[in-house]
């Protein structure tokens, strides 16, 4: 994957392009460090992991209980009711799909742009993507009301002669999200194969040797395999790149194609994509900070990486802010009284608390990242990134609920109030997310060993020794 060998470069070059990793690393320390985590014995595993895992699994159990209750009782257990039939499930769906955007952006688009700093964070950003998409997929599935016929979402020939409505963006959504999940999973798994083989080869127990061997699919690191691996990786990156832009565009069509004031705008696709990348990066930072701390990866995921991500967050925050202001401007300039009312209602109506939560979390607080000190401060970046995720949830809430509860005819106005079940289901989805993420950190190489090494200065000792 490298084209330049930095060890042969001039001193000036090194100054211009400082090394990506902190401290003294060579090939062996990198392998030991990253592969060491899955090799932890029971006693070596920090207590914090067990505590975190217990909490996550309990929340996952709660999600299961909430879904079981929903299936038993029906969607009446939620706050969804006339006129706001979309409520929290759709808000949560868009929220989770949005989070799932950073992984593929980091791994595919940054790969194609040769942004080598991606190698330290791409693996777990991709993992985060897949887990977020898994969380997202739950919500439309349980939102259909009769989950045992959720397969009607797919064009499967059946004895009812029923066929999905191909003119509906809701169906495009099914394809967009499932394609995205498939490609992300393949990309993640493919990239992991050489590292799984490394763990296999270091294995000291037969079970580990067999299991990692099974998933390493017989990787032996030959020239030919590397050649094909890199080809496949490049192709998948090229395939995944348009998906980063298309998935959330299609999600935005769910709203934009409808005629409802506040939804029916052409700005939605780019606005949604920017927001998705924004929330995705915020989630990567909020996961990377504790993960590098607890799993001892500070030399790999350096302050430079975090700062770079904070810059992306700042940039996308301004894109999102620009979109908010454009929406307001067009609502006024367009002269459509319904549109104008929809946005006045957002800003000053009975959901203005949600609008201003969204606005301050997404547009105002991230401006602090203009200051280098704040970009490089762990506690402050954590606070801002969590706020960004809160704000992005509110963005989806504002879009979904304010428009539905105030449409054209005042007689069909209403006020949406969520139930406890709504809240516990949403919290429970974090349980699923963190359970998967903790299992991933514990049992799989959370940083791409082979890719990090490829972008390191050449390890002369290792090369001579070989």
């Amino acid at each position, binding site marked *: 994957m490298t084209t330049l060998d930095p060890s042969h470069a001039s001193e000036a070059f090194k100054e211009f392009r400082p090394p990506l990793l902190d401290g003294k690393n060579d090939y062996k320390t990198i392998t030991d460090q990253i592969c060491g985590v899955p090799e932890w014995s029971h006693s070596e595993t920090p207590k914090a992991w067990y505590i975190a895992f217990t909490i996550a699994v309990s929340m996952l159990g709660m999600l299961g209980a909430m879904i079981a209750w929903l299936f038993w009782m029906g969607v009446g257990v939620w706050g969804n009711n006339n006129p706001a039939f979309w409520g929290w499930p759709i808000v949560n769906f868009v929220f989770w799909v949005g989070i799932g955007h950073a992984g593929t952006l980091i791994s595919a688009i940054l790969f194609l742009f040769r942004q080598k700093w991606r190698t330290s964070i791409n693996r777990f950003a991709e993992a985060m993507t897949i887990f977020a998409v898994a969380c997202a997929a739950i919500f439309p599935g349980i939102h259909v009301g009769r989950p045992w016929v959720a397969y009607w979402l797919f064009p499967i020939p*059946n*004895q*009812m*002669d*029923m066929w999905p409505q191909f003119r509906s963006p809701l169906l495009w959504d099914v394809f967009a999200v499932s394609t995205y999940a498939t490609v992300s999973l393949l990309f993640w798994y493919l990239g992991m194969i050489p590292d799984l083989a490394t763990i*296999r*080869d270091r*294995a*000291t127990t*037969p079970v580990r*040797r*067999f299991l*990692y*061997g099974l998933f390493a699919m*017989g990787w*032996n690191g030959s020239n030919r395999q590397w050649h094909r691996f890199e080809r496949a990786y490049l192709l998948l990156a090229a395939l995944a790149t348009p998906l980063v832009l298309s998935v959330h565009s299609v999600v935005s069509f769910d709203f934009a194609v409808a005629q409802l004031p506040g939804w029916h705008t052409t700005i939605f696709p780019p606005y949604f994509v920017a927001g998705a990348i924004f929330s995705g990066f915020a989630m990567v930072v909020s996961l990377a900070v504790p993960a590098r701390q607890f799993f001892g990866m500070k030399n790999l995921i350096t302050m430079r990486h975090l700062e770079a991500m904070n810059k992306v967050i700042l940039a996308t925050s301004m894109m999102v802010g620009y979109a908010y202001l454009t929406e307001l401007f067009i609502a006024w300039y367009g002269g459509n009284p319904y549109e104008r009312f929809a946005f006045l209602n957002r800003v000053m109506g009975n959901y203005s608390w949600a609008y201003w939560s969204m606005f301050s979390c997404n547009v105002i607080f991230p401006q602090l990242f203009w200051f280098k000190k704040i970009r490089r401060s762990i506690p402050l970046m954590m606070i801002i990134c969590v706020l960004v995720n809160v704000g992005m949830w509110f963005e989806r809430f504002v879009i979904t609920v304010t428009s539905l509860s105030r449409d054209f005819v005042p007689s069909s106005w209403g006020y949406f109030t969520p139930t406890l079940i709504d809240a516990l289901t949403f919290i429970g989805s974090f349980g699923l997310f963190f359970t998967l993420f903790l299992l991933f950190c514990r049992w799989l190489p959370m940083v791409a060993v082979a890719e990090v090494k490829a972008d390191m200065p050449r390890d002369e000792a290792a090369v001579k020794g070989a």
Partner: protein
Amino acid sequence: MSRFLFPKWTNKIKNLLLPLVVGGAVYMVVLVWLGASPKTLVAGYSPVQPVPFSHAMHAGELGLDCRYCHTTVETAAYAAIPPTATCMNCHEKGIKTTSPKLAKLREAFATEQPMRWEKIHDLPDYAYFNHASHVTRGVGCKSCHGRIDQMERVYQQEPLSMAWCLDCHRAPEKHLRPLDQITNMAWAPENQLELGLQLKNEYGIKTSTDCSTCHR
């Protein structure tokens, strides 16, 4: 520990993979298509009735019109099951008044308790079907119920599945007949499609396949 690679015999599994995946997919499709079909699961249902009423005899041999018993079929959504009194028009004083097969019928009549007939053609509650709007617009009894006049014990001939309903709603000309032939079980035109199209035009039939046509 030595490196784990897949043993040689696993290559055989690799060769089997494609036929297994393709074969499995085909098997699943065939299984669901044929096995889970309403033609397999529903059609042919023929419960034993409390009184062995023979449609073959009454509607076939004797030539009773369907509407003699199912009186509401032209005016209501539901084609009424006749009250015991309808049977007793003939069986109280004239015909087979002491037949042991009709014991339950006489008992029901005497005690004024309704007969517990078994329902055969039973649509799900979420499907709305109106008999009147079909039989007054050229759909004969036979199209859905089959040759009732030849059934000793009535069975469900058609699957009554959604696809089956849609089949006619998409091309009603396949089943339209003149309004005076609605209850004629034996009626068979020479060229159904030609006549059907002509009748469709004449009766102004605009079948709908919107969800809300049947799911109201």
